[in-house]
């Protein structure tokens, strides 16, 4: 559990995080979304005590991160790819981190194997590709078998296999009852991974909601139907309680009934369908809508 309360961070004249409050709960993947410069990384750095809040507070499992006697067992964080000395072997980097907590050496080899770096464990971090550095950072995050996992843009630099792997990893961690907070500026990635979303822009909270709610809020969606029997199908659909609008002759936009139901209904009534396209509510559009005001380069 991560509780962010009225969290504020000011760098000179810039307000990077502005009285932000939200809670990240265990057992699900929470996506942390916002345009570049929205304050996602700054917030995450404050979660693990690397940056000091100007005002407000953030607690992890009920306490400020610094006050935990075993921080790596509480929170595993990937903040930027690698975060290792370029001249040190990957395994030694993890071993040194493990030693601060008395975590056994065998755990180092376990996490290296888990992220697919077992064969490259003795190479120096400076020779790693971006994708390998991401994996090393994730290995470090998993080292303490933490209750809370915080990952900043983990799919950056990963190939499609790696992206798929991260997705499964995050879902697996959440299924084990852990708290998972993962940031991205890509809605499409979050739509596939997260159940809950915290959206921020210019350091302020824009939405704290589920993926389904955000789709509903988007107001688009429904199923596009093209049929020569528009009038009859419309009547049949209205009878089932669905809502139907029509933008041009021979096409219907149906909400309140899924594609399967519409298809079945047409067959039962002997009506022909020429097209049946679920307009998968564009989460991307909902997100763009939400953050349009908040896009700012600074």
């Amino acid at each position, binding site marked *: 559990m991560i509780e962010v309360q009225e969290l504020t961070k000011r760098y000179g004249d810039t307000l990077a995080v502005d009285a932000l409050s939200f809670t990240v709960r265990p057992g699900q993947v929470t996506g942390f979304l916002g345009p570049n410069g929205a304050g996602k990384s700054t917030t995450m*750095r404050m979660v*693990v*005590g*690397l*940056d*000091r809040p100007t005002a407000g507070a953030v607690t992890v499992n009920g306490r400020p*991160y*610094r006050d*935990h*006697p*075993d*921080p*790596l*067992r509480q*929170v595993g*964080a990937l*903040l*930027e790819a*690698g*975060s*290792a*000395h*370029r*001249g*040190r*072997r990957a395994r*030694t*980097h993890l*071993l*040194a*981190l493990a*030693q*601060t*907590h*008395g*975590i056994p050496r065998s755990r180092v080899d376990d996490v290296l194997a888990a992220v697919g770096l077992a064969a490259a464990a003795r190479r120096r*971090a*400076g020779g790693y590709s971006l994708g390998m550095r991401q994996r090393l950072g994730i290995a*470090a995050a998993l080292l*303490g078998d933490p209750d809370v996992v915080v990952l900043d843009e983990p799919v950056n630099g990963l190939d499609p296999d790696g992206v798929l792997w991260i997705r499964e990893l995050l879902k697996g961690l959440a299924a084990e009852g852990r708290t998972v907070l993962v940031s991205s500026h890509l809605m499409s990635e979050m739509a596939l991974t997260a159940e809950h979303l915290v959206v921020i822009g210019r350091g302020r909270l824009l939405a704290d909601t589920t993926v389904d709610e955000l789709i509903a809020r988007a107001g688009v969606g429904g199923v596009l139907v093209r049929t020569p029997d528009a009038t009859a199908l419309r009547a049949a659909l209205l009878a089932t309680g669905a809502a139907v609008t029509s933008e041009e002759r021979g096409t219907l936009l149906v909400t309140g009934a899924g594609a399967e139901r519409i298809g079945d209904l047409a067959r039962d009534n002997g009506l022909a369908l020429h097209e049946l396209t679920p307009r998968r509510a564009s989460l991307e559009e909902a997100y763009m809508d939400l953050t349009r005001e908040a896009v700012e380069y600074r």
Partner: protein
Amino acid sequence: MSERVTFPRVLRSELTKLVSLRSTWFSLGGVVLLTVSLAGVVGYGIDHDGEPPADTTHAVAASFLPLDFLVLVVAVLGVLQMTGEYNGGAARATFAAVPRRWPVVLAKAGAFVAVTAPVMAVTAVASFLVCQAFLGDDGVSLGDPGVPGQVAGAAASTVLLGLLGLAVGTSLRHSAAAISTLVAVLFIVPVLLGPVLPGDREDDVLKFLPTVAGQAMYGSLGGADSPFPTLSAGASALVLVAWVAAALAAGTAVLVRRDV
């Protein structure tokens, strides 16, 4: 014992980090090789066309002439032990693991002493033996009165100035800035301060500088022919320890407040 942060564990971690970098062994190896071989060159030079050392102290100090300058390599190693954390962003991982941060500074200091003290002890003894061997009849032996203290002083002074480097690196965190500052503090300030200070104040101030105190620990400065008075070896050691403690405390104070 449960898996949580304790100081001995952080110390162990810092030892792992220090000994796992090739640069540690390259720089220490270079210091040993150069210091000892140059000590031989100094001894050879004095024996062939120099004046024989005036007394035991001078004879021993001749062995450590190269160390006056090579101490910089050890001090830079101290700087890099901390500024290296910011190379590749290791600092994020380090300070997320030990969020209170001050144990990291203390553990780095402990690890630095654990690694450099034995190396510098060997270097000091070897430099002494090689230089005295070249001095022949003018040389002194390790058993002569005061000699072991002077040799120990050479090793200890180098380690302490290395810790001063660690402290400067902790405050400044950028390698280039920290190394420049260190060179200024160790080698430029002592030279400039003499002419800047009024004649009578010079003698009261210079002996408290880290470089002067460090060299006085092994008799490289001091004695009747010294350009300015120095403190005794023991008092100089205390002065240098005080510098190191103050600089480490200041660096730690900055580190725990700053964003990583």
